[in-house]
């Protein structure tokens, strides 16, 4: 594999990229062990907070401390404006797509996406057909995963339009960096990510149903303290200044949602739900769900409550539907996609399957319905036996798979012992949609593969996080 594009040093010409010039100079002049000292300090702070993490989650506090790298990932103003435009375009198209799929299905009639791919997709919800959520907004919160292969080569890896998580790390990381490196912030003009919670609050307020009044009641709905993302749920509720509720705190009466309070039932207008569709209403979906709200869908269909995100958004971030995203964007916006898709072979197409089977050792093959790295073959890293086993699965059920080339993810300088070493990174910015428009928080969660050469940024597999700086001007 050729040397990856580096966020600080670029493609290898030796000159430092503009956005990193100040940081590079600062690093040059920094006392040799400063970064390590700050890194230890960060760990101390986080360990203290880590206790808090454990408090909300399970007892295994140490496992839940995600490594934090103190060297920021920096994105220049121009780069960001390109990304921002691309993200807005993409999420707008996704909203239009969902509105159409659950409405007139023009994009199916026009042949943009195959009917069976949508209508038999497990994440398509027939219950939503013909429904319009308040304000016609489906995907209120998206966490789009981006990777980079070159100066202009940003690719979307996944759209994450169900209940994306990770935004609490984006906010906590910034807080930590401002505490550790106030001098660095003084030398850079970094756009604030703290406005995210304010943006989210406004966005949810703007999405309230008709009749909710001037000051709609918003809640965050969590499956409960045993959910792995509970910390984030309570963090967000806290920052938004709204109640963190569990299913049992809500009930539906007369097609209206209420929460039980010490002052009696209080109407709820907007639910930022962190519970999957399947579990949200046992009278409509999985009947044995104990975390949902019985009758919620009746209130939803009656237009009396907003669910963020809407029910049924998963059909838009399905891996097979993903492959059609460039066409979807063109169909709904009339423009070419600003952000590229990773070139993808749809194994359901015989020509593509043949090509994929011919070079399995070079490709990443993913199960359409899989997530979190399950059911995946990473060709270059797999043994012959693994490849052959996967070949059999692929031939047996080609519809279930897509294949992509292994991308050479960009690297960013990362503290490695006492030195800085290039490590592969990705980026998850958060995009908010409401009837008032689409907005992107200036930043995101940068995940970094701490092991040399590793492309896996998942925290469960040794990945860490970095603060992400978007520069002003």
């Amino acid at each position, binding site marked *: 594999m050729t040397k990856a594009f580096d966020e600080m040093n670029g493609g290898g010409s030796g000159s430092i990229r503009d956005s990193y010039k100040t940081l590079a100079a600062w690093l040059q002049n920094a006392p040799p062990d400063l970064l390590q000292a700050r890194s230890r300090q960060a760990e101390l702070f986080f360990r203290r907070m880590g206790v808090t993490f454990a408090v909300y989650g399970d007892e295994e506090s140490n496992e839940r401390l995600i490594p934090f790298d103190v060297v920021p990932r920096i994105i220049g103003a121009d780069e960001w404006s390109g990304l921002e435009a691309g993200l807005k375009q993409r999420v707008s198209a996704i909203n239009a797509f969902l509105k159409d799929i659950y409405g007139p*299905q023009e994009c199916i009639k026009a042949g943009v996406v195959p*009917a*069976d791919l949508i*209508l*038999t997709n*497990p994440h*398509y919800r*027939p*219950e*939503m*057909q*013909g*429904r319009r959520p308040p304000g016609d907004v489906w995907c209120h919160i998206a966490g789009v995963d981006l990777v980079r292969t070159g100066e202009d080569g940003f690719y979307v890896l996944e759209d994450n339009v169900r209940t994306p998580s990770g935004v609490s790390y984006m906010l906590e990381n910034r807080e930590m960096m401002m505490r550790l490196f106030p001098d660095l912030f003084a030398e850079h003009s970094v756009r604030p990510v703290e406005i995210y919670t304010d943006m989210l609050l406004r966005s949810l307020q703007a999405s309230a149903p008709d009749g909710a009044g001037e000051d709609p009641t918003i809640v965050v709905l969590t499956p409960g303290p045993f959910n792995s993302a509970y910390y984030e749920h309570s963090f967000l509720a806290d920052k938004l200044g709204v109640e963190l509720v569990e299913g049992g705190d809500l*009930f*539906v*009466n*007369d*097609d209206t949602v209420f929460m039980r309070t010490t002052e009696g039932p209080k109407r709820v207008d907007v639910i930022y739900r962190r519970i999957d569709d399947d579990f949200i209403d*046992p*009278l*409509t979906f999985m*009947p044995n769900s104990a975390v949902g709200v*019985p*009758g919620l869908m*009746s209130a939803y*269909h*009656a237009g009396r409550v907003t669910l963020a995100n809407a029910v049924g958004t998963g059909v838009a971030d399905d891996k097979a539907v993903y492959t059609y995203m460039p066409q979807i964007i063109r169909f709904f916006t009339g423009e070419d996609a600003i952000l590229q898709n990773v070139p993808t072979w749809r194994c359901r197409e015989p020509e593509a399957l043949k090509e994929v089977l011919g070079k399995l050792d070079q490709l990443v093959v993913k199960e359409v319905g899989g997530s979190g790295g399950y059911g995946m073959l990473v060709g270059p890293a797999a043994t012959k036996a693994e490849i052959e086993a996967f070949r059999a699965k692929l031939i047996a059920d080609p519809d279930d798979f897509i294949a992509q080339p292994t991308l050479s993810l960009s690297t960013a300088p990362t503290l490695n012992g006492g030195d800085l070493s290039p490590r592969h990174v990705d980026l998850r910015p958060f995009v908010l949609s409401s009837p008032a428009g689409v907005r992107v928080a200036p930043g995101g969660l940068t995940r970094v593969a701490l092991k040399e050469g590793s492309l896996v940024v998942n925290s469960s597999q040794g990945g860490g996080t970095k603060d992400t700086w978007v520069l002003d001007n």
Partner: protein
Amino acid sequence: MRIRIDHSTRYGYARPARFIVQMLRLTPRSCESQQVGDWRIETDVDARLRRSEDAFGNIVHSLYTERPTDSLTIRVMGEVSTVDTGGVIRGQSERLSPLVFLRDTALTRADAAILDFAQAIGQGDPLDRMHRLMGALHRDVAFEVGSTSATHTAAEAFAQRRGVCQDHAQIFISAAHRLGVPARYVSGHLNRSDGQHDQDAAHAWAEAWIEGLGWVGFDPANGICPTDQYVRVAVGLDALGATPIRGTSYGGGQESLTVALHVRPVQQSQQQLQSRGWG
């Protein structure tokens, strides 16, 4: 013919339930084969009923009780005029594409045995194959009350080759999907030819989408296509989706269920008497 239905469902609660929420799919819609007249829902405790229509075209009532109660009876009554269309459904607007009814659910997902069974149906035009599928099911899966419960999957019922109408319908759907034919579940009522008007449970069957004909009913439990003895009430992807009543109680604890169902033909001469009897 005219069929009169009187269907009571009584829930008893171990402790008084503070509040009860239910979704009722108990009200039939008119289409070419059935005209619904004079249909009522009554509850024996004060409750709000909100009527709406779901994406499957079913009439849904959301029921919310108004005060604590230790029991709740929902009674639906009405009369439906039917004609025999050979099982073909016409005059019903469909919001969902037939392709949606190729979706498998936890209850209809085929296992290897159902797949084999479906493949053994052989080739032919779809209508013919569905008739053969219905016949084979009627022959191979015994009707036996109590052999399955409401949560049994098609695969589980098929494995024991026994079940009730719900199981027959779900196995039919499962196998039809394997043959590439959209199929769905129907809950409803059957005016029995043996004159048994008091019934223990409502009936269920399946419908398959046949290109050129549209939705066609198949009742594998009885081995026939629905006639004018049948009243369709609700459709869904599986039994769960077409369940007459789905609900929950707050604070009621263990609940018990009693169903009383009378389905009988209305004779001209009896009409006067009947309406007085129910008045």
